[in-house]
């Protein structure tokens, strides 16, 4: 097997207050290989964004990484000093945030913002940076003339594409996408995802994809980790997960999306107030499928409506 781009080992993040510490992420381990799309799925509060932010070293007080390692190409990310971080971010790992389309500076033209990113991290002339911006905009199928536009002159979908293009500007080896399409209509969402796939083919980066939408995740990802309460409860290749999920929470998530084809089947979802506590470490069940043992009953598959 190839050397992983990213290796997260036993990562534990705590949000500390005077009275108590809440674990946002609890002994989380996974690896991402070059060119792979790895998905982290789970509901709000499960710790998926906490993971993304700790990989990027963006956590702020009161969050604290209390244990674990993040290795990028074998280099310890958690041990980097400010200068090393600055050189590493965007050059090697870029991140597209939730509602990133609102993260563009409203009073600066798009082109300027590209130039800013490229020159800050790579240096070079304005002309060279602008040339690169042209290429990137073409890649995401936006007319390079729009480099002269201000963010408010573009639609939400266009802005999202620009943010993604900006993230790819320096050919990172890993792209972190945190709910990149949540605020968009389905049609635009599909086009953006296609864009991401194309860029990935062209530039060959690996992706850490974060979302709560299982059908989206299954369509895009190669491997998926399901998070609940700060822990990964199941980790498997997407195809395995779809037909052979073992953890009741994974099944609840999968069952939460009614199908668009076939007979109408009554789904149950997760009962109000269901909680999984004391989640055990993952156990290998073969073929890259890891499951946390659970004594909770497996959800019944629904009856016909």
């Amino acid at each position: 097997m190839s050397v992983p781009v990213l290796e997260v080992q036993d990562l534990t993040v705590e949000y500390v207050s005077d009275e108590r510490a809440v674990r946002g992420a609890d002994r989380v381990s996974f690896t991402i290989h070059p060119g792979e799309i790895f998905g982290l799925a789970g509901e709000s509060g499960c710790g998926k964004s906490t993971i993304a932010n700790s990989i990027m070293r963006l956590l702020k007080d009161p969050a604290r990484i209390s244990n674990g390692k993040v290795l990028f190409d074998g280099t310890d990310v958690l041990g980097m000093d400010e200068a090393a971080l600055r050189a590493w971010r965007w050059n090697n790992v870029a991140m597209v945030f939730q509602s990133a389309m609102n993260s563009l500076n409203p009073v600066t033209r798009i082109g300027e913002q590209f130039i800013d990113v490229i020159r800050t991290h790579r240096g070079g002339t304005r002309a060279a940076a602008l040339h690169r911006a042209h290429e990137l905009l073409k890649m995401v199928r936006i007319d390079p003339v729009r480099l002269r536009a201000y963010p408010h002159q573009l639609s939400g979908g266009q802005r999202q594409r620009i943010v993604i293009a900006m993230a790819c500007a320096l050919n990172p080896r890993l792209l972190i996408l945190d709910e990149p399409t949540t605020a968009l209509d389905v049609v635009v969402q599909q086009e953006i995802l296609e864009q991401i796939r194309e860029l990935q083919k062209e530039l060959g980066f690996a992706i850490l994809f974060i979302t709560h939408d299982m059908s989206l995740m299954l369509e895009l990802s190669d491997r998926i980790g399901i998070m609940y309460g700060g822990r990964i409860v199941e980790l498997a290749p997407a195809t395995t997960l779809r037909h052979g999920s073992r953890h009741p929470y994974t099944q609840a998530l999968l069952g939460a999306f009614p199908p668009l084809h076939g007979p109408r089947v009554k789904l149950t979802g997760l009962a109000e107030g269901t909680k999984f506590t004391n989640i055990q470490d993952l156990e290998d069940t073969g073929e890259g499928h890891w499951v946390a043992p659970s004594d909770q009953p497996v959800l019944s598959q629904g009856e016909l409506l």
Partner: protein
Amino acid sequence: MTSIATQRTAVGPAVRIRSLSKSFTSSALFSRKKIPALRDIDLEMQRGEIVALVGESGSGKSTLARCLALLETPDSGEVLVNGKDIAGLKGAAVRKYRSEVQMVFQDPFGSLNPTFRVEHILERALALHQPEIKSKRSEMAKLVSTVGLSPDVLSSFPHELSGGQRQRIAIARVLAAKPSIILADEPTSMLDVSVRIGVLNLLHKLRDEHGITILYVTHDLASARYLSDRIAVLNEGRIVESGESVHLLDNPSHPYTQLLVGAVPDPDRDSSFDAPKRAALREQIQRWSTSANLQKHIIDESSQHWVLADESEKNN
């Protein structure tokens, strides 16, 4: 599933909308442009029927629900609810109408007053809409159990409840008005995914057990197929296609419906996206939406499936 709907057709439809139009005025400094939000809407809902309105943001689906809730005044057209015209309702008649037609909103975090306990919220609704009820306590317990919660929640504040629980309380409050029609505007889009199905199942149960007519407004085609008997697809303020849910989504005829159906994430699909086909669809939508020659074409009589198509293009 449709049996209830058919049983009740004899008494006349719950909602009958005839050529309803509504436009908004955009007020730029020197220009006042009329932007049509709804154009010539015809829609009928039988008693006990669940109809889903689907479309992208800006298609006019919420505006239609808001017209029905008397939150917007249509420019023209007629809306009959339970046989009565709702234009020009005043005073007590409006109040009566509002207990008849209730709305469930998207955001259960904003729609419940955070300073009151759940019991107060429900008690107010009961006092307003069903003042004749003496034993409010037991009625409230009945309401919360109808929506699948334990009576313990009555003494909680909204912030102590999860999103799913809050939306259930919002639905309990709606039920306190004894409505015959519920307008549910994206009721699950702010909820965690694992509890969404529970809320949809609850709405389904309300229809089955109380015969409530439901207008379900959503952009999520899969949930519309799951919940509703019939789907109406809105595009730029027009209903462009309508019919029995499963039949419509299995045989989408309008290019806009085809576009929507093709965009739903589907792990079974191998190649999700065909750019030239997408461009062709968009072009066709554009042609059809500006066409002067739009006609309703029946696609399948038994499932009431029709499409608003351009006369000259329908056959190719």
